[in-house]
């Protein structure tokens, strides 16, 4: 089942002389439960693509459908609500609110929706992220890896249709990075969580079901690494 589709996405920054084409006519789709990694050199436009997919940035042209909804045609507030319910975003620098503790940060999208926290779900997620001992700590009292785990827990809490991670390991050492990736993979495997992940690390990229390479704002490669639910290699393009 198709969960994400983008059509002819273009993004242009600046005007006239300073005009930069960050994305050029990008189209692809992602199936439910798929784990897609996006790789590419710095400045190739992969972060821009992820932000447009996540609804935090607007494309100059093109459409993004998530679960059949064209997100960029939504009004700003509707889009914000859609984002907190359907999209989980993980950033390189965690984006945790410094004044809220671990539990509150995890439940934030849910609380913004005006709903009460589901303690069972919270406990489950906190446990699966190994944060039981840290629940009442503030972000400043946590290590980088722990902060990133909180940010993953926040993204997962609302059972989003799609999880978007922008270099989640970029700021972490190798071991901690591997830990984070395995947590993400775990949720992809067990919860059938659709996951799109940007990385520089080839090892991480190769753990995905499918790998997209972006260069200069264009998809240069779209490689299926293993079949959904199976384990075999398959070349797609």
């Amino acid at each position: 089942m198709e969960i994400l589709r983008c059509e002819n996405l273009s993004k242009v920054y600046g005007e006239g002389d300073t005009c930069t084409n960050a994305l050029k006519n990008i189209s692809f789709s992602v199936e439910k439960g798929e784990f897609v990694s996006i790789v590419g050199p710095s400045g190739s436009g992969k972060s821009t693509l992820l932000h447009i997919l996540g609804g935090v940035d607007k494309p100059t042209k093109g459409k993004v459908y998530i679960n059949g909804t064209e997100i960029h045609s939504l009004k700003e507030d509707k889009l914000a609500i859609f984002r907190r319910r359907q999209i989980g975003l993980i950033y390189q620098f965690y984006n945790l609110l410094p004044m809220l503790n671990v539990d509150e940060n995890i439940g934030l999208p849910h609380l913004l929706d005006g709903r009460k926290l589901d303690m069972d779900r919270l406990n489950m997620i906190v446990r699966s992220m190994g944060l039981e001992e840290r629940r009442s700590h503030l972000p400043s009292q946590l290590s980088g890896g722990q902060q990133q785990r909180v940010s993953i827990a926040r993204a997962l809490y609302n059972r989003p249709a799609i999880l978007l991670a922008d270099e989640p390991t970029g700021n972490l050492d190798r071991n901690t990075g591997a830990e984070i990736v395995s947590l993400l993979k775990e949720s992809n495997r067990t919860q059938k969580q659709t996951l799109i992940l940007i990385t520089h690390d080839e090892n991480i990229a190769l753990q995905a079901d499918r790998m997209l390479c972006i260069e200069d704002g264009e998809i240069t490669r779209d490689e299926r690494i293993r079949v959904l639910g199976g384990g075999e290699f398959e070349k797609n393009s």
Partner: protein
Amino acid sequence: MMRESGFLEVGNLKKTVKKTSRCFWGSWGRRNQIIYQVTWKHMKMNPKRTWTTFLGIFFMILLMTCVFVGRRTAVGYLQEVGSQRKGKWHISMYDVSGKELQEVKSLAYVKEMACSADFGYGDFEASKDSTQPYLYVKAYEPPCFDWMSLKLKEGRFPKNEKEVVISQSALDDGASIAMGDSIKMRYFNRSITGTQEGVTTTFPFQNLSVHFGETLDLPWSFPFYEENESFRIDREYTGEEIELTVVGIVETPWFEQKDAAGYTAFTRYEDGISSTFNISLTLDMEKAPGNLYEEFLKIAGNHEMEFNNYVLAFTGDSSDSSMNLIIQMMSAFFTLVIMAAAIILIYNVFNISFEERSRYLGMLCSVGATGKQKRSSVYFEAIVLFFPALPLGFFGGCCVVFLGMSLFQPFIYTIMSISEAVLGKVPVSIEFSYEDIAFIAIISALTVALSAILPAKKISRIGPMECIRGNIEKADLKKQARPKAMQRLQAERLLAQNSLKYQKRKARGMKRASCVFMVILIITVSGTQMITKLVSYRILDRGALSTSDEDWDSKGRVMIRGEKNNFSTNISIRDNGNGIAPEDLGHIFERFYKGKNSSEDSIGIGLPLSKQLIMLQNGTIHAMSELNIGTEFYIKMYSDIII
């Protein structure tokens, strides 16, 4: 079955509606709850900024309070001081009868009315002061006690004409009287008759002369004089002997004359007690017509009537509308200045914190906070700071008004030309009404709302991208470095320029805020100066004023000296000018008389007018002069008198 399902459906529908509405409100509150929580924590993490905002709101409310409470307190105080002269009543008619009473009663704009009468003297055997052997008994209806500012020291006010309250001054002088005592007396009036042929006895302090064979009624304030061969004092009894019971002691009334022949006592005025009586009344100023004075003059006819202008001047009387207009214009002006200042100040404080606020709001935004939720963060902060600031600012404002009034007190007496004899008698009391509080609250809330709206709108426009990229400031900077400029200028210089621009933006808010305070300060200072100037202008028309001998040799000096004793206030005004020629000196108080040395623009009306005014107030004026040395005027004002 059908029925049952229909019922069920309706029931379900009701349930759903109820549930939805509860959910709507519940989730609305909860939806913002986390925003409030985050904002609150953010406020606690930035105490400096939070305090600045709080103080901004606090001072705004304080200043608003100063305007509204200050206005009411000042007017109330002026009224109170004014009432020291003659009491709180507005209009009095003397020696009227039932006819006038009925006419006054029929007027719709008379708020309160009370009758009183002077019963006259009675022997007061308990007196220990031989110059004050009488009681002078006045009969009041209850409102008069308040209008004449009588305060009970002990006991209660009289309930009938057999009960009496006595002035504390009698006890101070050692009179052996106490509550519950009874006094037997017969009321009488006093008259004086000249008994020595060819002799006219003059009582200068009372402005009274009696010729041989002449009989004059004595005013109640006339002192006790031993009879001698040139005059005789007679009594004219006005009724039978009655027995009065002392039910209370009042603080010495402000209008009691120290040298009068009797202590003051008050009994209760009852209908029909006396065929002629006095009417005092207060007016409902909002209903009072423009031709108020004419209407009352018509009713009073030949009877003596008095308008208490000292009180009427400050009660919004239509005849003195210019003063009310000035007061209203001034409060409107100050309100607007304060509002404008506060809006600029609070707006800037909110704006200074733009960047740090955007950081956490941007984060919230990246996890899905809506524009409304971002705005509600600013509103929440404004409200949270406004509510404690409101009572504190109000209280602070009241304190400032109290201090200001206490400092300004001497000026008020000067402006109102009231002597120091009564100074200090009126304590400053803060006055405000519920409408004032409501108005201050509404205006302040409006100001805070206006100050918060723009920053809130600006903040709600921040998207998550700015936060993610960490370029909130840049997004707001309109001009960005351009490659062409980059080629022309060096990159370092551009960087420096950009950073300067950023610094400037931060500094601009501070500059604006401090400008606002400067403006307020300047307005306040110049306003105070204006008032001081006005006050001194009244005292010092031309020439320099001096109160010491210093610098006396230089020409054009004026020296004013004053002293006060039990009977009079004496003022001397001396200059070192050209002096008045001896032949002119006897005529200077004549109207349109011009002496040799008088200046060209003199028309000979100032001194005669001064003399008339002084004499009207029981005073005397005379002059001594020596050519080329100077002139000195002596003014003597008897008893509770005015400068």
